[in-house]
């Protein structure tokens, strides 16, 4: 049994490229609905999930931004992204939705603790 550290859900896939993003966010929402405190870490292309101007895609590809907007209703207010990811992608912070907190390399590593359940999408 785990101690009651919060669930860390890692999102590494961009909108529209696969169903990974949506299915990762679903896992975060269900964790929150189960009463877990959920922290989200966006790595790599996952940071694109936070772009404020994203929309629906080609026919059949629903927008994922409404799910991002829904997170706060589930008390998921920890939206973290490594500063290094923003630098590597050349993604300006002001292109992202509000409430995103960039993390230093040490802060990222500190999220990985053996007592914390982790789901990596």
């Amino acid at each position: 049994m785990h101690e009651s550290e919060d669930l860390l859900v890692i999102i590494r896939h961009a909108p529209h490229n696969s169903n990974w993003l949506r299915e990762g966010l679903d896992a975060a929402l269900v964790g929150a609905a189960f009463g877990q405190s959920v922290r989200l870490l966006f790595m790599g292309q996952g940071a694109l999930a936070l772009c404020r101007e994203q929309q629906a895609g080609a026919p059949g590809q629903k927008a994922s931004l409404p799910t991002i907007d829904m997170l706060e209703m589930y008390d998921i207010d920890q939206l973290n992204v490594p500063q290094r990811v923003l630098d590597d992608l050349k993604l300006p912070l002001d292109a992202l939705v509000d409430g995103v907190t960039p993390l230093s390399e040490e802060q990222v590593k500190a999220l990985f603790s053996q007592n914390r359940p982790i789901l990596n999408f």
Partner: protein
Amino acid sequence: MNYGLLVMGAPYSQPAPHSALRFAHAVLARGHQLAGVFFYHDGVHNASMLMTPPQDELNLREAWKALHKDHNVALDVCIAAALRRGVISQSEASRHGHDAFNLEAPFELTGLGQLLTLQQRCDRLITFAS
């Protein structure tokens, strides 16, 4: 011109079939012919009758079916790629002892040779894969 499409991604999991569908309509809108779509690799899942997306999302199989109905586009599915992924017609299902099936016309299970034929008879073969 005469176009053929090769689609190698599964609906909802990969953007390839969604892009391909939109490209198909743009090809027709510009006055070209679209001879056929060949589904290979994970693209065979486009043909599944059991695909059940949420009600507010487009059912891609129905969209391909409409393309066939409105523009007589052949919808060929590679039989070897389909069977190992659980996409199967009634006749193949009974041949392999299954009680159910999930592929029916206008989708057709065919050999890979059909892809090479499509490539040879079309002016353009465009691949959609992600």
